[in-house]
Structures are given as C-alpha cells and as structure tokens.
C-alpha cells in the first residue's frame, strides 16, 4: 500500500441474516478505485462483541475510514463510529438508534412483513424460506435462494441490546432509503435519515439494496469518501 494514501478506507458492517460477503458486489469496484476495503465479520451474538470486532477490523486498514452499515449494521456503525479513525457513516436501509433506544424499540414502531416469517429456535432467529421474498424479493429467484441458504441467524436477544455511542450526532452521515423495503420499514428509514441530518438517497429497492442496486450504493459511498477527502484536505 502507498504510504501517502489519500482515499479513505471503506469498512463494511453487515446486518442479520447476512455476513460480510453480502458486500461482494461493491468491493471490487472500490478496490479498483484505490480504496482499502474490508468487510467486518462478526458473530451476531452480542452487539458489544460486534462493535468490538468492528474496532479490531478498523485497525487492519489505513485511517481515516468510512463505516458502511446495512440494516442492523447501522446500529453497529452508530456505536463504533465514535472511534477517531472514522470520518463518515453510510447507512443502507439501516437502523440508527439514539441513546436509550434499541434496534427492537425502533422496529416495533414500524412493523414489517418479514417478521411473520421467522422462527426462534436454539436461541437464534431464523428466516423461514418464504421470508426471503420480504427480505430480497427483487433479486432473481436463484439469487434469493442463495441469500436464504447463506442467511446467518442472530442471537434472539441481539436487538434488545444497546452499546454506548451515537456517532451520527458528530460524524457526517449518508442514508440510502429502500422504498420497497419489507424488512426495515421505509418510513422508519426516512425518519432516521432526517433525524441524523443525513444526505439521503431513495432507492427503489428491497431491503438488500447493495445486492439489487449496487451502482446506486457505490455512488453514495463514493460521495461520502469524497466528502471525507475534502474535509481532510482543508483540515
């Protein structure tokens, strides 16, 4: 890696029913454009552990970095983003709790169809096969089946936990609202984007915008990275 890297690193934080490879459609382009990229892999066992994994992963790339969170990953970047190495936040169809809020308390206010297609077993929350239509319904059927086959079930208590830190209050934020989202309600995404003062883009997409609209998501990440570069140049 060049010692005088000018582009911020991009660090991805996945949601539930996914892992770091859900960003695979974005990673090659960002690398080709000169970013160091790493997708955090965390266990969805506890939010504190997932935030800790994100901070460990931040140390594997050069600073500064942009944190990009999908879905529950929005809660992770909200907490981990207070780290000094982070200069911007990108939320993809994501939650963004304030102090005193949990992911569950946010979701409860805006119910969505997906949660009629889950099963809690062995302490984990599993997506039933028919639920993938409410998670990734705009992908080709074959791709939807892969999404289901590789879904990573979180601990049943994960959404009731809260880790300290509300990075969107101090870091510039971007938000992608998925207007056809049946997992996190689009109106919740709009409310959160407005509350955090995010630069917001609406995508006609299911919950998995990074899979169904990778170009749009890339554009938003590029804008966030460019803004961070600009800020560093004038600092």
């Amino acid at each position: 890696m060049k010692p005088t890297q000018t582009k911020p690193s991009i660090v991805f934080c996945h949601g539930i029913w996914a892992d770091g490879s859900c960003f695979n459609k974005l990673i090659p382009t960002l690398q080709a454009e000169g970013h160091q990229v790493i997708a955090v892999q965390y266990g969805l066992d506890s939010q504190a552990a997932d935030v800790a994994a994100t901070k460990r992963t931040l140390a594997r790339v050069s600073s500064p970095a942009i944190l990009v969170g999908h879905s529950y990953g929005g809660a992770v970047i909200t907490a981990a983003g207070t780290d000094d190495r982070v200069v911007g936040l990108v939320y993809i169809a994501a939650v963004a709790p304030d102090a005193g809020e949990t992911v569950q308390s946010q979701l409860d206010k805006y119910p969505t169809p997906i949660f009629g297609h889950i099963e809690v077993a062995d302490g984990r929350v599993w997506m039933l096969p028919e639920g993938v239509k409410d998670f990734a319904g705009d992908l080709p059927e074959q791709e939807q089946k892969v999404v289901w086959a590789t879904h990573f079930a979180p601990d049943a208590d994960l959404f009731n936990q809260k880790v300290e830190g509300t990075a969107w209050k101090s870091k510039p934020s971007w938000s992608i609202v998925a207007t056809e989202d049946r997992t996190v309600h689009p109106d919740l995404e709009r409310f959160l984007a407005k509350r955090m003062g995010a630069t917001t883009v609406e995508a006609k997409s299911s919950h998995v915008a990074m899979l169904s609209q990778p170009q749009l998501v890339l554009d938003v990440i590029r804008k966030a990275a460019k803004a961070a570069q600009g800020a560093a140049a004038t600092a």
Partner: protein
Amino acid sequence: MAESQVPISTDSFTHKVTTPAWKTKPTWYMVATADRSINPDQERMMAKRAHAKTVEVNASHVAYMSHPKETAKLIEEAAASSISSK
C-alpha cells in the same frame, strides 16, 4: 475474498475433537493438490484414515471456489449415496 475473511479464534485450532464423525459416518474427501494452507499430504493422510471416497483436484485451498463443478459433483455423489443406502 481477503476482504471478507472471518478471523479465527486462537482457541479454534487447539481445541480437541473427542468423537470424530468420520469414524462412524460415510465420508467423501476432496484433496486440493496445490493447497498452501493445509498440506496436501496431510489431506491425503486424513482422507485415507477416514476411508473416504477421495478425489484430487489441482486447486488451491479454496477448491470449492476455483473448482465449483468438481466440488458440487462430489457432494451430489455423497447425497445420492446416502439416499440409496437407506
């Protein structure tokens, strides 16, 4: 792939298995002959010890990515065999 790796716990590799399933269940094994993560000779030894139905592919450690067809074929063989033995 390097970008979405899962770091392993340092404990994972020192933990001992007490009842290896290959002693009691039918076993298939794909040896990756160009493997630089697990030594191919070690793979051959384990395949033989498990009396596995073994195929060799000229692949790196991630044989399922570089040789997905061969890997799927081996899994399909295992699946077909377990149905016909019932």
